[in-house]
C-alpha cells in the first residue's frame, strides 16, 4: 500500500506558484495602500490601528497554514504517500513563519496601546505555546535523518500540536484577555473592511505560492533521499587486475 516512490517534481506547480505570488503581491500592494492612506484612523487607537490590516491577515493565514499541515499529517499517516510529507514540511514552515510575524506585529501594536511589548495574557500565551510546538516539529524534522521515521514522527507530532490552534482561536472567548475579541465585517466599519479583505486574499495567495515552492524543494530532497543506492561499480574488479 505504501507509495515508496518519491513524489515527482512538478514544473506546472512551480509556474502556478509564481502566478499566485504575482497576484498576491499586487493585492498586498493595493490593500496596504488602502490600509495606510485611505482607511480612516480608529477613534481610540488612532493611526496605530492600521497595524490591523497586516496583523489580522497574518493571523488568519498562519492558522490556515497550520490547519493545512494538520490535514497533510493525517493524509500521510492514512495514505503513506510522500507528497503529503513534502506538503507537511512546507505548511509547517509557513505556519511558523507567519506565527512568528504575528507575535512581532502584536508586540509592536501592544506597546503604544497596552504600554508593554508583551503580556502573559491567554491569547498571547497560547500563541507562544503554539509557535514553540511547531518550531519543535521543524527541529525534529531537521535532526531525524531517516525519511520514513521523520515523516511518521512529525506527522504524529503535528496532529498532537494542532490542538493548540483552536485553543489560540477561542482563547479570547474562553478567558478574560487583554486581546480584543475576533472582529467580523458586521463589527468593523466598511472603510476598514476593504483593506482587511484585500490584504487577507493577498496573504492567502502568498501562502499558496510559498507553500507550493517550498513543497517542490522538499520533493526534490525526498527524491534524492529515497533514490536506491548506486549499483556497485567495477572498481574492485579493475583493482584486482592491477
Amino acid at each position, binding site marked *: 500500500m505504501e507509495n515508496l516512490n518519491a513524489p515527482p517534481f512538478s514544473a506546472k506547480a512551480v509556474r502556478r506558484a509564481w502566478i499566485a*505570488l504575482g497576484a498576491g503581491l499586487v493585492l498586498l500592494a493595493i490593500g496596504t495602500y488602502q490600509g*495606510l492612506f485611505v482607511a480612516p484612523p480608529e477613534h481610540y487607537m*488612532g*493611526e496605530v490601528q492600521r497595524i490591523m490590516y497586516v496583523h489580522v491577515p*497574518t493571523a488568519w493565514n498562519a492558522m490556515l497554514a497550520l490547519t493545512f499541515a494538520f490535514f497533510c499529517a493525517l493524509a500521510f499517516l492514512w495514505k503513506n504517500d510522500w507528497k503529503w510529507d513534502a506538503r507537511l514540511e512546507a505548511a509547517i514552515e509557513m505556519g511558523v513563519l507567519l506565527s512568528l510575524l504575528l507575535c512581532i506585529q502584536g508586540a*509592536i501594536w501592544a506597546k503604544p496601546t497596552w504600554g508593554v511589548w508583551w503580556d502573559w495574557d491567554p491569547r498571547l500565551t497560547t500563541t507562544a505555546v503554539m509557535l514553540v510546538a511547531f518550531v519543535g516539529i521543524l527541529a525534529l524534522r531537521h535532526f531525524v535523518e531517516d525519511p520514513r521515521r521523520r515523516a511518521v514522527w512529525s506527522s504524529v507530532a503535528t496532529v498532537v500540536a494542532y490542538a493548540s490552534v483552536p485553543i489560540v482561536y477561542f482563547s479570547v472567548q474562553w478567558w478574560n484577555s487583554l486581546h480584543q475579541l475576533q472582529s467580523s465585517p458586521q463589527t468593523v466599519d466598511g472603510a476598514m473592511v476593504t483593506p482587511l479583505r484585500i490584504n487577507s486574499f493577498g496573504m492567502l495567495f*502568498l501562502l499558496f505560492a*510559498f507553500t507550493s515552492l*517550498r513543497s*517542490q524543494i522538499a520533493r526534490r530532497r525526498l527524491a534524492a533521499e529515497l533514490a536506491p543506492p548506486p549499483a556497485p561499480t567495477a572498481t574492485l574488479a579493475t583493482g584486482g587486475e592491477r
Partner: protein
Amino acid sequence: MTGVVTGGWEFVWAAYGITFAVLTAYGIRLASHLRRSREHEDR
C-alpha cells in the same frame, strides 16, 4: 490621560516594514533553493 492614542506612525511603519522584509527574504531564499536544487538535478 484621554485614553486616545496619538501619533504612533513609527509603530505602523515598523510592523509593515518587518513583515514585508521577512516575507521578501523568505521568498528570495525559496527561489535560490529552488534554482540550486534544479541545477543539482540537471548535473
